[in-house]
């Protein structure tokens, strides 16, 4: 892997992604805060009366949405990273996983920055800041592993079938509505609850909500399921990526 040799390159690629995202916008990096804040205000106005059984809708929504957005944005960027960097891929030898990894890491940085918004909203809505907030690092780690794994899988598949970009967009939309992000989990009929049970993203979100919003320790089963899914996704992702990466260049 000789990861150390490429640390500076990874650093550069991540920086490029973040810099270019906000270049020429007046508020620049502040959009990492303003974007989730804006969407939270809109969604709170729209849904908080509809789902008035949710206590503290803004924080409930933000924990779910930030995790979902990182997963969606990270995997999407990783998926496009091979085809998007085709011209470099064809001329300079660099371990190809770096492109996918840098795309995910830059999304992760944005995600971490947007946690500041979460803390601000928590403070404004009088949420108790407990030590359990530190425990959120574990589900967030699971989320990172899950995103890298899924990202590597999507990057590989997309090289061979470009249709994936569109199919995956639909999948992500489905995922957003199937995961209780802006509605309470209980409104889903009992017979469809299994969708939530087998949704690692929802397990992660629930762990985060316990840590941030409710100030309790999360359900260990949720955490184990989230961690397990993350590790399995990562192993499959690395396996598939390494198996097919030598053929990428013939298809990009």
């Amino acid at each position, binding site marked *: 892997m000789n990861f150390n040799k490429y640390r500076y*390159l990874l650093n550069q690629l991540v920086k490029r992604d973040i810099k*270019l995202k906000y270049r020429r916008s007046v508020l620049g990096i502040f959009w990492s805060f303003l974007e989730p804040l804006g969407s939270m205000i809109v969604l709170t106005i729209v849904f908080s009366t509809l789902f008035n059984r949710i206590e503290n809708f803004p924080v409930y929504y933000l924990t779910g949405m930030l995790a979902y957005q990182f997963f969606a944005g990270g995997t999407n960027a990783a998926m496009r990273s091979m085809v998007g960097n085709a*011209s*470099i891929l*064809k001329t300079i030898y660099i371990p190809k996983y770096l492109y996918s990894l840098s795309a995910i890491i830059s999304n992760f940085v944005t995600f971490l920055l947007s946690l500041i918004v979460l803390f601000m909203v928590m403070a404004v809505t009088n949420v108790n800041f407990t030590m359990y907030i530190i425990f959120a690092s574990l589900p967030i780690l699971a989320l990172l592993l899950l995103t890298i794994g899924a990202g590597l899988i999507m990057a590989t598949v997309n090289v061979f079938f470009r*249709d994936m970009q569109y199919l995956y967009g639909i999948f992500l939309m489905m995922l957003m509505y199937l995961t209780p992000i802006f509605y309470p989990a209980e409104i889903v009929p009992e017979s469809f609850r299994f969708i939530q049970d087998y949704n690692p993203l929802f397990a992660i979100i629930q762990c985060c909500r316990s840590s941030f919003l409710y100030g309790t320790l999360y359900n260990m089963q949720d955490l184990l399921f989230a961690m397990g899914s993350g590790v399995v996704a990562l192993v499959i992702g690395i396996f598939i990526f390494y198996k097919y990466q030598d053929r990428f260049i*013939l298809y990009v």
Partner: protein
Amino acid sequence: MVIILGETVITVDNVGMEFNLSQEKIDSLKEYFIKFLKRELHFQPFWALKNVSMMVEKGDRVGLVGLNGAGKSTLLKLISGVMKPTEGQITVKGRLSPLLALGAGFDPSYTGRENIFLYGSLMGHSKRFIESKFDEIVEFSEIGDFIDVPLKNYSSGMGARLAFSIATAVQPEILILDEVLSVGDAKFQEKSRQKMNSLMEGDVTILFVSHSTDQVRKICDKAVWLHHGKLIDQGPVDEICDSYEKFMQLKE
């Protein structure tokens, strides 16, 4: 009995490279399934290189000659690690400096300064190394105050000059060249020619592809003749170039 004098730096052992030339490009899942079910997945195997073996010793200057489509560029890409061979093995000892497709890693929205660090890191240099060469690169490229202007506002000559300056900032161990590089206006071309000459001094190993046997004779001391992916002959540069030229005349 071959007596090896210098240290072998590049070994190409019985290498073959196969491309699948599908008659029609299939890159959608639906198309693939339909063709798969109809058993219409015809791939025409095409060997761009077959059974190629060669050795390059330290300090050798090897020219690759052959017609268009002989597999010269494929061989360079295999040696530089961009592609992996279908068969056989390639081992390289020492730092490669492939001067192929200059500026492929440039980002148009990045300034010249940022691109120096990005492109330098893509070529495997460390931050400290790029910083130490920074002034030299800027001076050689003659872009002056444009260093902090986004690359998309450069003239095409300026971009090429910057790419050339970064790529040649390091004294290479193994230099890989596809045609002699000369960029910019007449004045800069002369300067870049001198720079190339200084890079080729000393005991640097050179792999050089050209259509012109004159240039190969001038730069190289050994030559390899490829024809339709097969290695026809290798040996001292004059011998190989003579028989290649004779072959070309016969063809006419």
